[in-house]
């Protein structure tokens, strides 16, 4: 992927998220959303190393992963607005948005719960001999969930084509990583004899390089790799945070990280005119995507019991007929 494309995708995520915040503030999006702003280089760098038929499992902070893996912006906005043209027909929302056709096994409301999915998919690919790879994203908070360790053990034991991508943004909501994680994050991989790298998660090209090594190792049958991407979230934990007085980060710290804004950094590497052209083009794309979402119908309450069972069975209703 060219530097131009890397920038465009990062910028797309950035502006998508900023538009999402506006839509939440305008009460057009219900519930909470977890913005990816500040971490764009990780999703973009990692997914740039993947093929279309590789799979990823995402997190509660999933918009960036989906966009980087190629999800349609209009259908993503439609999902966040709870419309029938949403990727999940309005059934999933921000925390469950998925596109299986693109190998996106979904955002997930439960920390680290996607890791075993990725292990199952990676095993399946390895017995197929298809050369396909699975990537599981999780945060520094997710590093301490036991199921992640269970998955790391299996991936190393069976040399699965699986890449563990830890987005270490320093906090699990308000808990700083130093107060959640003994030892170092990368050392967790060593315990399983798994290849591991620490990467500058604010530099998309550094992430792409490391991800490319990891993905090639996986495709070549070399087994899993653990990537710790050091990054930072510029916004609150979720859109609801602004209504709370939580003071777990200093303005200073936020400022220092904002100076390393990954979108600005990679944008600065482009010819200003090229960059300006991309930026303006993007705004109209996002306008169109939001317009598409807004015109999409809301689901019919009469359909509330659909899509529960693949066999087509309907669940029991809450009142006797």
């Amino acid at each position, binding site marked *: 992927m060219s530097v131009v494309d890397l920038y465009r995708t990062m910028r797309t995520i950035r502006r998508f998220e900023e538009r999402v915040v506006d839509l939440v503030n305008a009460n057009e*999006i*219900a*519930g*909470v959303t977890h913005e990816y702003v500040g971490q764009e280089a990780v999703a973009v760098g990692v997914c740039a190393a993947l093929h279309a038929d590789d799979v990823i499992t995402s997190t509660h902070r999933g918009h960036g992963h989906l966009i980087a893996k190629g999800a349609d912006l209009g259908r993503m906005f439609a*999902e966040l607005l*709870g*419309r029938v043209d949403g990727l*999940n027909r*309005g*059934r*999933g*929302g*921000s*925390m*469950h948005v998925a596109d299986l056709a693109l190998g996106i096994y979904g955002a*997930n*409301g*439960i*920390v*680290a719960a996607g890791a075993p999915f990725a292990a199952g998919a990676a095993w399946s690919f390895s017995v197929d001999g298809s050369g396909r790879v699975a990537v599981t994203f999780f945060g520094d*908070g*997710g590093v*301490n*969930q*036991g199921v992640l360790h269970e998955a790391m053990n299996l991936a190393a034991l069976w040399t699965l084509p699986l890449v563990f991508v830890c987005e270490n943004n320093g906090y*699990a*909501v*308000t*808990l700083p990583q130093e*107060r*959640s*994680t003994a030892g170092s994050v990368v050392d967790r991989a060593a315990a399983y004899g798994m290849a591991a790298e620490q990467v500058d998660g604010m530099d998309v090209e550094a992430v792409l390089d490391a991800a490319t090594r990891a993905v090639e190792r996986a495709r070549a049958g070399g087994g899993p790799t653990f990537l710790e991407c050091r990054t930072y979230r510029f916004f609150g934990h979720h859109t609801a945070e602004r209504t*709370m007085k*939580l003071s*777990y980060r200093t303005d200073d710290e936020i400022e220092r990280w904002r100076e390393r804004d990954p979108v600005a950094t990679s944008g600065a590497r482009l010819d200003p005119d090229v960059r300006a052209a991309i930026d303006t083009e993007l705004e109209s794309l996002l306008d169109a995507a939001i317009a598409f979402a807004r015109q999409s119908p*809301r*689901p*019919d*309450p*009469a*359909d*509330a*019991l659909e899509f*529960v069972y693949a066999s087509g069975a309907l*669940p*029991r*209703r*809450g*009142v*006797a007929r």
Partner: protein
Amino acid sequence: MSAIRYLPAMGKALRDEMAADPTVFVVGEDVRASLRGVTKGLFEEFGPERVLDMPISEQMFTGFATGAALAGRRCVVEYQIPSLLYLAFEQIANQAQKLRLMTGGQAAVPVVYLVPGSGARLGLAAQHSDHPYSLFAHAGVKTVLPSTPADAYGLMVSAIRDDDPVLYLAPAAVLPVRGELPERPEAVPIGSARIHREGTDVTVVAAGHLVHEALAVADELADEVSVEVFDPRTLYPFDWELLAASLARTRRLVAFDDANRTCGLAAEVVATAAEELPLVARPRRVTRADAPIAFAVELERAVLPSREQLAAAVRAAASEGGS
């Protein structure tokens, strides 16, 4: 007497118990910063040895509470989301709850499993909207679901003082409710129900936020049907005596329940009434569908039990069995 909201009432009870008993402490995620609001000010007042932020590892910190209990402390474990109880289910239902029997009475496990914001909260979608109390009642775990600030206070006090594991669910929909709290609020015993409104025609059993919905429906129907609103407050052990007394008057039952229908609390209430209590009309249930909560708010509302459904069920019950 002063008016207070439900959430701070819970917090006050926790604070008062921590002040009264140095063995009481809290663990959970973001409890220092009090992301959920219950532990506000507790870290400042009681410090790091009483208010413990845990890494994201629910199974471990649930068992941690058991170990601390065996070592002589009383732990309140906060979970940010109801479905996190599923991660800890083995530690709660298969370890903590069974330890006393398994040890032949040697062990006591005074632990409170607290979910501030259980059930649905518009737009939180499938994995953040469950109301899993029926699962714990099935396992015999003491379970409370307070509906007012005074009960939120009083049941928190009793849950902390209880020598057994207690699940304490505070529905998201009831957290903002205001109510009176006396200067010296009292403990509400576990296992005691409360009749919020007396009536002669139909008893509606409702807990948590649904108590307020039921009261609203009772008002609406006031000149048609005399509705008694029965709030179990504790789901396990259930106050069958008071329900029997209520049904002795009304002889008609509607169970209004925010859990899934199959094997839910309403099923238990209806089954017990049908088997053991006086009824002149068919008992009825108004519950969630057996479906996950979809994100779109229209769909979410469609699977949750509604006032309209309750009113219809109450009318139907009232129309049966003469008077």
